[in-house]
């Protein structure tokens, strides 16, 4: 029952997410649906459990599992009925690239060996190594354990276990994911609840590769996915579960990928899904609020202008704005945000520390900055040849805003102390790194091909 419960806790939301993506989003390959589906499923789990707990419900395995199972079945039925245009698995272009060049064969083999080694380590570490790090124990998994074992979330502010216990200024949503696994697999077990993080790492890499494979050369899309999977700190977060930075990075990538899909096709359901993922990004961690805001400004709002003639777009927007406002108003730590804004001031010693985290140390690997620079340089030369002059200005602004915001957290606020003791900067940059890599890939795609040639890129951010 325990193993079955674990499998169900992983499979049900994933099937729901993939089927929902398949049901509403046309023109994407199957791998995109699968990878994006994991994030949609996790968002559904968080929303469902949060609603149940806030209504004071006693959440048993049956009560938690039934709605997700029903949603999964419904999504599968709808996806089969609608039967939207779906591209096949992207193995064909990869195979063509494999056959075309011995260099690609060697590179793919080396990437495969590296990824296989990493997956092996994840399986071993998740199965045997206990959780050890402070924030995981004190905040995220600690609260998850309380909620899962009590089968309810104490809502009395006088209760020592109120909302799971400690650190109430941190969002509760990420703790609901390990709680969900524990509820379905019959009790708290670290080897079970830890699976959320390796799966997140895997799906972030897959989603980036799958999203880019339709836009740039398949080998480069594969490289982009591998770049994310091989960011040393990202892998350590998958290996040592319990921190939320990787989850936030994943939701940010999922939202960006969904926003790009909507911008491309302009379908209202795509917009609705993008806004739901945006909400999840804002709610999963405090830093996610600004990342979601940046995405809203750089990707969603220009898209609304682009698709202003679509009635469905405006219906979705009209419905989503008040819902999102209410959801954010109820869940965000406004007092913390207010305190942070009130304590703004310049900390001049921090930029040197940030540079050390980004470039000198191994948290992101040497290619964190070498690859984007190289790819953009290559794409610039290609652009000159192709004559295309347009670029994804929105994405450029988005990446710049993310980097500026992450730097500003330390340079301008009291969080400078966390830079001075080295605790947080690398983790905060990890939150934005995968989305920045996806955005850079999309920028290259825009620069490489003239608009309207080949597969349409109309509407990319």
């Amino acid at each position: 029952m325990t193993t079955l419960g674990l499998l169900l806790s992983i499979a049900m939301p994933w099937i729901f997410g993939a089927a929902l993506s398949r049901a509403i989003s046309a023109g994407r390959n199957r791998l995109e649906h699968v990878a994006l589906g994991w994030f949609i499923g996790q968002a559904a789990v968080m929303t469902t459990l949060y609603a149940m707990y806030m209504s004071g419900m006693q959440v048993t395995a049956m009560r938690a599992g039934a709605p997700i199972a029903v949603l999964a079945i419904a999504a599968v039925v709808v996806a089969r009925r609608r039967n939207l245009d779906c591209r096949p698995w992207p193995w064909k272009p990869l195979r063509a690239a494999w056959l075309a060049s011995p260099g690609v064969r060697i590179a793919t083999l080396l990437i495969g060996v590296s990824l296989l080694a990493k997956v092996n380590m994840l399986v071993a570490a998740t199965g045997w190594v206990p959780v050890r790090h402070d924030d995981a124990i004190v905040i995220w998994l600690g609260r998850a354990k309380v909620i899962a074992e009590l089968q309810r979330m104490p809502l009395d502010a006088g209760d020592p276990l109120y909302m799971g216990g400690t650190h109430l200024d941190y969002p509760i949503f990420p703790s609901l994911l390990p709680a969900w696994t524990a509820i379905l697999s019959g009790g708290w077990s670290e080897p079970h609840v830890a699976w959320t993080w390796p799966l997140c790492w895997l799906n972030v890499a897959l989603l980036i590769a799958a999203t880019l494979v339709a836009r740039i050369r398949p080998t480069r899309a594969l490289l982009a996915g591998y770049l994310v999977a091989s960011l040393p700190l990202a892998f350590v977060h998958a290996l040592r579960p319990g921190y939320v930075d990787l989850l936030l990075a994943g939701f940010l990538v999922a939202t960006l990928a969904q926003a790009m899909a909507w911008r491309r096709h302009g379908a209202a359901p795509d917009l609705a899904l993008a806004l739901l993922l945006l909400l999840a990004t804002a709610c999963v961690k405090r830093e996610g609020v600004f990342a979601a805001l940046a995405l809203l400004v750089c990707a969603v709002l220009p898209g609304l202008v682009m698709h202003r003639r679509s009635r469905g777009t405006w219906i979705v927007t009209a419905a989503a704005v008040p819902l999102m406002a209410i959801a954010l108003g109820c869940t965000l730590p406004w007092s913390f945000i207010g305190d942070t804004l009130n304590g703004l001031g310049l900390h001049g010693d921090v930029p040197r520390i940030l540079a050390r985290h980004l470039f000198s140390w191994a948290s992101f690997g040497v290619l964190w900055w070498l690859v984007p620079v190289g790819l953009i340089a290559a794409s610039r030369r290609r652009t000159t040849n192709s004559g295309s002059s347009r670029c994804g200005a929105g994405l450029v602004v988005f990446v710049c805003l993310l980097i500026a915001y992450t730097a500003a957290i330390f340079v301008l606020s009291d969080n400078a102390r966390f830079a001075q003791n080295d605790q947080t900067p690398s983790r905060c940059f990890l939150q934005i790194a995968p989305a920045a890599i996806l955005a850079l890939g999309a920028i290259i795609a825009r620069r490489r091909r003239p608009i309207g040639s080949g597969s349409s890129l109309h509407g990319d951010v």
Partner: protein
Amino acid sequence: MRNARTDPTDHTRRNVLALLALVGAAAIAWPFLRPATAWEWRFDGANATVGVTIRGILRHAPDGVYIRAAGRPAGIILDVPKFAAGACAAVEIETAATASCEVPLTFFWQPPGATTYRFTQRPVALASRPTIARFDLTREAMWRGTIGRIGVQWPGVDNEAVIRSVRLVPLPRRERAALAVRQVLARRPLDNTSINYLTGPTVLGSGLNYFLMMFAVVAASLLERSRAVRRRVGPGRSSLAVTFAVWLAADAIVTADIARQVIDDVRVYSATDDPAAVMFGEELARCRELVRATVPPGATYTVLSDDDFYPRHRLDYQLTPVRICVPPEQIDRAAYIVVYHRGAARFDESSGRLWIDDRHSIAGHVNGRRSAEVYVVERTRE
């Protein structure tokens, strides 16, 4: 097609690429070739301590400076001249003591411009006859090659410690290549900070990223120049191939490090029935069992410890939500008080009170005891 032999733009391009390759090669070679300068402070007279920060009671003598702990360990702090800061590989401290003892001599250092110190310790047997304690900085994980300030402490010396000299030892050029190889291959274990950042290997005082980047610059410049000589125009794949190769190398180094760590972890944790005892320590595991035995399910407890964070949160995580931990600030809400290595706390059997410090006390009785430092007090009505 342009004639590359006569086109001045191509000439310039080739020359720039060659220059770039040379600069990259020089940057790689510099840590292996830079001049090494030894430096020594001799404390053989009253003027020898000018500009030196001394911690502890001090007296000068011809054979050195005598210092004694005054509230905190005796120690000295020295500013390193800039020209000696770069190629220092080891520090030799000539020291003695007025009474024989074995102490954990502490060496600490600070990179230029930094505000915090890095520490390392090694046991040293001190006697009236001088001994030389050598700290090999190249073996220290936190050493980044350059030092701006160094210091030495003599914790545990009850009488006087004598400091005769401190010498910065440069690394001979012939030994640097071997050391570089050792440093690249040395394992950097994942520690508690690894969830926040990974520092990676330091090779001859420079981060591995520095060498990989410079290698990429050299290789890409040479390959591009070769294309230019062959009058190939348009973008080449060589730069991307070099970039990819460097990336794979960096990934392989990190992955190998982590793999060794995972293998060790799995070996250790799969062989135990109580992984938390291995992870958090045997004593905390015994304390957990004591709490389980003495604090009934549903009861509230708090943990009093000199370390306010580690024991309390580890116990809380393992015992929640069956037993509910409240922070020490809310001790009034706790029915049980777990005392875990709290220096200022003592239980007075005669009065039946737990004295948290000299002023605050709680009525109760000891419900279970693991040792003199670890016990559980059940609160009773006053």
